[in-house]
């Protein structure tokens, strides 16, 4: 597609519920990133995929967070047993190059609210 598509746009989850956030990157983009953005803050790195390989997951805050990109295109970020501190906007970005070599194209994000 023309841009990075994320769904759902908004998600309200009860504490303890599992959620799955989807990202459809720009076709042909090798790199895919997940970032978490709290209100009034800059995006914080969660994880990085190069094609289907998850090369870096150092930013995932706990083992409740899991990401996959099984065929090297669409990616899913899953959060198990959601907590209130998980409330944030989750941004997906894709890039033509690897790592930080090229500019990132971000999706519109999924705003997660845990109640």
């Amino acid at each position, binding site marked *: 597609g023309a841009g990075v598509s994320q769904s759902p746009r908004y998600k309200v989850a009860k504490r303890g519920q599992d959620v799955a956030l989807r990202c459809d990157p720009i076709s042909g983009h090798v790199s895919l990133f997940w970032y978490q953005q709290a209100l009034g803050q800059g995006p914080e790195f969660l994880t990085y995929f190069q094609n289907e390989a998850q090369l870096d997951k150092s930013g995932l805050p706990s083992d409740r967070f899991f990401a996959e990109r099984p065929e090297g295109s669409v990616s899913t970020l899953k959060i198990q047993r959601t907590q209130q501190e998980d409330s944030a906007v989750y*941004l997906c970005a894709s890039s033509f190059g690897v790592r*930080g070599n090229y500019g*990132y194209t971000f999706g519109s994000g999924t705003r997660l609210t845990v109640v």
Partner: protein
Amino acid sequence: GQQVMQIPQYQHVQEGEDFTTYCNSSTTLSNIQWYKQRPGGHPVFLIQLVKSGEVKKQKRLTFQFGEAKKNSSLHITATQTTDVGTYFCAGSNYGGSQGNLIFGKGTKLSVKP
């Protein structure tokens, strides 16, 4: 770990005034990128700087990368209401933290017409 700091956090200007935001890294960077996020929107890539001392211009926007590749600035000449938003710098260090972009907290610009 690598940190990227931005100042100021907020800037309020009258339309037509100039605006500058500064970015400093705790470590030497391989490159630095700048993004703009409109209220309610997502970050949009503006530019990437790679070379020491590099200066790039986009219309009223001037971007600089420091000689030591640890700092950068974005200057907007004669601000317009369309410049409203949060400007983020993001640094990458290929040899360090495996090259992930680390974002600053951003400078929020408001422009009074």
